[in-house]
């Protein structure tokens, strides 16, 4: 027996389960590839004050309405409005905001939940929302509770310049600040993919410092260009919408929740002569091909479907997800409908689990291991690995007993 079990082979035997364990963890610890797109968030920011900036609030509210119509629920939209135009004394239509001079659509209707308003909209609060570093008293409704499976739409409008965006006529958000916040979000697994959409003058410069993978950015104008307002409402006496946002909205007005228009079709829909500025999009950090990403991945809440035969056997989801990836985007309406149904359930489940897992995530390596174990997805394989690891333990214990 002693010749059979020499120390070297014993070491190998001991190493085996560790390796197995490690490999399984390593597989899990690259969440960009691993995490599913499970939920959608939108952060919509209007950064400028004052009555003559009416259009910025109208821009933001229009986009709010659009993403809501396309399926992102209110609790997943963080709406920041730097001023209250609806109740401005100069407003000819008190408590109403319009983005078109035909006044057919009141953007400030019944179901508008403004999370940050007036002087709450500061650079500090904006960065806190992105990075999730709130004071304890901040209610959940004002937090961006996204996770590594989230697609986030970040829309900002206001007055900008070369690598900055003005907040409240007193502060500036610089491109470095934005890039830093995004990087922190990435490290904290707060998003899977992030679409930054900015409608300001020289918007493209705001993206200069971004480095984090999974970020797609689109701005209304290049460096040295202005973004212009679309039209003046001579009844209200102010410009009511900016050109870039106007044509974005025009694009989305044609869509409903089941449409499959891709991001590239959105990006190519901007006509520089109508916009009077050149849209700029930065996609070098973004891995997927824009033609294959439906706009509803960001502006709606539409996710990939996992088809399961049995009600409770959703464990091998990754494989099915991959299968879905390979399928073309032009699928039948029937299929999309079905995946919508599934989506709602999925989103809620995952969402409830994750925040708890995240809180302990950064404390020590062991807790990360534990978290990985806790992930429901890999219970199957882990069990198998565990059983394999038990064999050498059994061998050792029997050998020690002898």
């Amino acid at each position, binding site marked *: 027996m002693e010749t059979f079990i020499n120390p070297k082979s014993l070491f190998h035997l001991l190493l085996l389960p560790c390796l197995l364990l490690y490999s399984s963890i390593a597989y899990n610890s690259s969440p960009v590839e691993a995490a599913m797109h499970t939920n959608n968030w939108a952060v919509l920011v209007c950064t400028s004050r004052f009555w003559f900036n009416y259009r910025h609030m109208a821009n933001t509210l229009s986009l709010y309405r659009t993403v809501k119509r396309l399926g992102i629920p209110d609790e997943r939209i963080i709406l920041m409005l730097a001023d209250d135009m609806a109740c401005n004394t100069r*407003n000819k239509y008190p408590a109403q905001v319009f983005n078109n001079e035909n006044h057919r659509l009141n953007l400030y209707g019944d179901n508008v939940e403004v999370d940050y308003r007036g002087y709450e909209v500061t650079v500090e609060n904006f960065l806190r929302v992105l990075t999730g570093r709130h004071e304890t008293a901040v209610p959940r409704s004002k937090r961006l509770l996204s996770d590594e499976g989230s697609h986030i739409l970040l829309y900002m409008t206001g007055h900008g310049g070369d690598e900055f965006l003005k907040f409240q006529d007193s502060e500036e958000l610089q491109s470095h600040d934005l890039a830093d916040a995004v990087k922190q979000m990435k490290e904290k697994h707060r998003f899977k993919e992030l679409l930054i959409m900015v409608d300001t003058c020289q918007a493209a410069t705001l993206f200069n410092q971004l480095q984090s993978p999974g970020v797609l950015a689109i701005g209304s104008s290049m460096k040295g260009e202005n973004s212009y307002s679309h039209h003046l409402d001579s009844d209200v006496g102010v410009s009511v919408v900016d050109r870039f946002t106007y044509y974005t909205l025009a694009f989305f007005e044609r869509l409903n929740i089941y449409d499959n228009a891709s991001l590239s079709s959105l990006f190519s829909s901007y006509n520089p002569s109508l916009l009077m500025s050149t849209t700029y999009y930065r996609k070098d950090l973004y891995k997927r091909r824009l033609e294959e990403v439906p706009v509803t991945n960001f502006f709606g809440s539409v996710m990939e479907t996992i088809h399961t035969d049995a009600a409770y056997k959703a464990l091998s989801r990754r494989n099915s997800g991959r299968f879905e990836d390979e399928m073309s985007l032009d699928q039948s309406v029937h299929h999309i409908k079905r995946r919508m149904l599934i989506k709602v359930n999925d989103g809620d489940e995952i969402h409830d689990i994750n925040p708890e897992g995240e809180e302990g995530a950064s404390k020590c390596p062991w807790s990360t291991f534990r978290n990985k174990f806790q992930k429901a997805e890999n219970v199957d394989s882990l069990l198998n690995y565990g059983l394999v690891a038990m064999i050498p333990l059994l061998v050792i214990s029997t050998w020690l007993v002898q």
Partner: protein
Amino acid sequence: MAETKEKSLSDEKPKPRVRPIVRLGIFLISHSFHVSVVCCTAGVLALFLLPVLAKNTYISENALMPGSASPMLSNQHVSDGNRLVKDLTNPNSKSSETGIESHKIIAQYMLDLGAEVSFHKFHPQMNQFHPLHFFSSPDSGKIQENYSCSSYGINTVGIIRAPHGDGKEAIVLVTPYNALKSGFGEALSLGIAYSVFSLLTQVTWLAKDIIWLVADSQYGEYAAVAAWLREYQTPKFSSLSTPNAEMCPDVNNLFELKGHSISGSKFSNSFRRAGTMASALVLKVRDQNEQFEDTISIYAEASNGQMPNLDLINVVNYLAVHRQGLRVNVEKLWSLLNSSWLKSLGEIFESLAKVAKSLYPKWKFGIPATEYVEGTATLASSLYYQALGVPTGPHGAFRDYQVDAITLEISPKFSLDKVWRNDILLRGGRLIEGVIRSVNNLLEKFHQSFFLYLLTSPSKFVSVGVYMIAFAFLIAPLPMVAASLYVDANSSSNCSKGDSSTPSAITDTDEHSIAIRSWRWLNSAKLVFIVHLWGAIVSLLPYFISQIPDCSPTTSFMIWVLLSILSLLTLNSVLASPLACAKATQEKEWALVKSVTISSVFIGLGLMSVINFATAEIGALLMVPMCLLAQPLKLDVRAGTLRSFCRMICNLVLGHIAFPPAALFLLKGMLDGFGNANVGDFWMWVESLWAWNSATYLFIGMVQLPCWVLCISILFHTC
């Protein structure tokens, strides 16, 4: 650096290194004659170049957004306004002797619209000379006495509260109205204001309260507005005014009648206020007009050449020209329009600009000659009215409280048919509405655009940064010439002393004499000081002269002149005689006097340019050549060359022109013709200056007059 230091240390006798700026100063002082000629020419040229350098106005404040909202004033409002005009011009309303009836009509109209209405009764204050009240804010606590019940005016005030506003700010609309002898123009201006007012009671977009002040102009437009503003801004907590009102049954009657007829309405006996005034518009309609199209004149100058923010003028100009199709003009000196020399100057500039453009296509600064002439005429009037320091309309009263205000005078092409009247009501009303809506959008006070500017046309302006250059060129030679004169006077006397005295005498008296010589300028300084003191006394004299009852302007002026001469002689004999005799023999004493005079003029002009630029500019045009050229006539006569002869002639001419009354006489002659000018005019002019607390008066009394006297004394210096 270190090497050079070591070098300088190692040198036994380091060369006295003069810093470049000192060297430059020495150079300039030694060539002061050429420098002063160049600078003065440049200064005058720069002044004439200003119309070419004028920039187009632009709306600087984002929040204003003039014309972005379409006007809401409809024919309904116009017919409302028409109704008021008819009621006011109706002969029945004029039957009352005090004109109270028409005030009642206006108040009733305001009440019908749902506005808060109150009457403000005021006693016209006579303009008096208060020597200590220059630059001080108008005083509320003046003791009012000797007012009879017959001499009071009634302002009717209507206030609309902004429906959603916080009531912290207000916009004021003023229409001067004389109930006793109102022309059709005044009634029409009330009609325009009323139509706007009736619109504003209905709109939801008001952020600032609207105050409509119907100023009783029977004692002058300015007095009524100023009285109301005084009451508004500096509330009286004493019960001075109430007993006054009670003593006069007529006023009581007016108040009570109102109270009874409309009980429970928004009429109130007490003084009503709204928020801080954001801006004010004074609206007038001129009765006669010889223009061929509807024009609107803007008057902006307030006391001491203060101007409202340029944005306010821009908004009015933009809306009038681009929205209502009215022609806008600002005051011009009409006499300049036809002057041929100006036209040829404009042509020279135009051709120069063409040459420059052909050399380098990016140089585009030329303007057509006709435009140049018009620009110069406008600029000259802008300078003149600012220099005068007297407000050009009731808007001046607002500027005293730092409220931006202008007077708009609409002069329609006159005809009496109804269509025309409706048209002018509509366009005038829409213009006022647009301006009010634009100002309503303001978030802060007017602050973005310029406060210091000269207009060359309603849409062109010269900002402070540009027009100061001309002034700076003009006064730049003064300190240099003063320094060079001082140096000359000292060195030449040194030389002469050195030649005359024997070497043995130098040894013991040298230090002493040098010490005395270096302080010699104090004598001249004393003389200058005495003359300035005299100037102050002369400026105070009118206060005492005005106390003499029943004095015609001519006699007052004569008394003033006599007293001034008397006081000059007394001062001279009392203060200056003992030392003046001793130093009279001194050579070149006049040079020192001139040097100190020039320094004092420099200081005076510099100070004045801060208070009122236009006055300083015109003063510099007169005084700088006079100061620089002044030289004893005897010397020139003795020299007998052509150059000295020319200088003599120039000195004599300038000596006449720069005398303030003569300057005014010339100015008046140029503007109105020499026929109707007389001696009393200057007294009246001076009276108006001190009545308006114009700093120009102080400038003339304490800078220009002493300077003139000193220059004359240099001219007649016995040397």
